[in-house]
């Protein structure tokens, strides 16, 4: 008996494994039940899927990975800033990924980790948020939205999903910021950075962060933190996007190529 029994929550992966049936219906069960994924014909997908690849040098399933994302709260709301690079192994799969997901006109989320994992579960969350609105005639709070996401992710814990998300939005007439990841963490905070470039982003972010920042200063801090991360971290790059979240909605502030930013910052240094 678990929380599942009280909330009538979805079955967890473990439960799915026991009744594995290789039918077309089971393979694409997520088309009708979006929270249930088909179980593999082996236990422990983390280890055993990796083993399948180990034995075959030719086969490499490299799905898109690698990121720098950040979010912080200050007096004027929340700033989210992200890069746009997706890497599959050494190969840059894309320089134009939109790593900020627009859940509705109040909520935003960032994606780091497995691109497919994040986009799929954000899509599920978006539908859950919309269903909440239709059922309750009011917008879902960020606390509730993140809890829904956390419960879904937690039920897939230890099955190999890879996600690190920062969600921001209006919540009880104020703006708040949550961090969620595939270990099942869900926590509220002031400053978060996620992804392979986060250690670099934190360096700039922590040294420039204070509550009293003006809007312009906050955008620039977010932008600069991501820019420096793209400069140091090979898995991050592309364009830097900055979003501003206030309690009554969000705005896209800027989209700038890293090369343009680099030239601008270099020129500023020489002055």
């Amino acid at each position, binding site marked *: 008996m678990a929380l599942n029994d009280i909330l009538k929550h979805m079955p967890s992966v473990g439960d799915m494994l026991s009744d594995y049936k290789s039918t077309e219906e089971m393979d694409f069960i997520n*088309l009708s039940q979006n929270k249930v*994924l088909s179980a593999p014909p082996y236990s422990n997908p983390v280890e055993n899927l990796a083993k399948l690849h180990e034995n075959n040098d030719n086969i490499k399933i490299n799905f*898109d990975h690698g990121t720098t994302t950040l979010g912080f709260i200050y007096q004027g709301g929340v700033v989210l800033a992200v890069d746009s690079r997706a890497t599959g192994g050494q190969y840059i799969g894309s320089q134009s990924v939109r790593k900020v997901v627009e859940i509705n006109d109040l909520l935003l989320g960032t994606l780091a980790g497995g691109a497919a994992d994040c986009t799929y579960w954000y899509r599920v969350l978006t539908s859950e948020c919309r269903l909440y609105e239709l059922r309750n005639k009011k917008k879902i709070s960020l606390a509730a939205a993140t809890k829904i996401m956390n419960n879904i992710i937690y039920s897939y814990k230890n099955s190999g999903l890879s996600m690190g998300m920062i969600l921001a939005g209006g919540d009880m007439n104020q703006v708040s910021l949550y961090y969620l990841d595939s270990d099942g963490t869900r926590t509220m905070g002031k400053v978060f950075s996620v992804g392979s470039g986060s250690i670099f982003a934190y360096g700039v972010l922590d040294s420039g962060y204070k509550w009293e920042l003006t809007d312009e200063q906050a955008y620039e801090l977010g932008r600069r933190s991501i820019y420096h991360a793209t400069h140091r971290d090979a898995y991050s790059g592309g364009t830097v996007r900055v979003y501003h979240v206030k309690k009554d909605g969000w705005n896209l502030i800027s989209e700038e190529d890293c090369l343009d930013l680099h030239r601008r910052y270099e020129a500023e240094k020489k002055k």
Partner: protein
Amino acid sequence: MLGINQFPEYQVPGAVQHQFNPYENNGGSIVAIAGDNFAVIGADTRLSAGYNIFTRNHSKLFQLTSSAVLASCGNWCDSDTLTSILQTRVRQYSDTHENKEISLNAIAQLLSTMMYGRRFFPYYVSNILAGIYEGKGYVYSYDPIGHCERHTYRAGGSSSALLQPILDNQIGLKNMEEKPTIPLTVDRAVKLVTDTFISAAERDIYTGDGVKISIITENGVEERQIPLRKD
């Protein structure tokens, strides 16, 4: 998971370990370009495994509707399964919607969801979907577990790392100080696709023999085949 490796005392001569590997790389490259009111998609026609060439005339293109063509390569048996199920679903859609064709963006999402459904035992395939939606050309590309992104041009498969930079230069005009203004017409797109394959056949052992190109316009899908090196 407990296996025989956890019990070394049983690892004596005569102990047989069975292993099954469901993945194989059958090679092949695919390229797609979207224009203002058209889309061009091409795939080579070689099917191979390791150093063996199985066949030189094998299509990796799947026409799904009058305005959508999917190119799929990688592990051929996975491509075969995935595309046949997708084709069934596309057909089911029109049968349950008074013969209305499923739109390109709906196929794009359907394919993504289907691929993610196999998150824990993925199809080892590289997919590119091209077509037109409301008169405009689109290209969607996928990673093996269903991450979908819209592009204007995209290369996939065994020589994607060779082909994508050519397209970045010729169509994306990436990182150029003075960008030339050459309009992207159907003819130029077809020529570019052909040229990229000629280049790939020169350097990639898994690409060659021929290219099949589908040109998708408002008038439907036109197919062309161009021969490549056969060595």
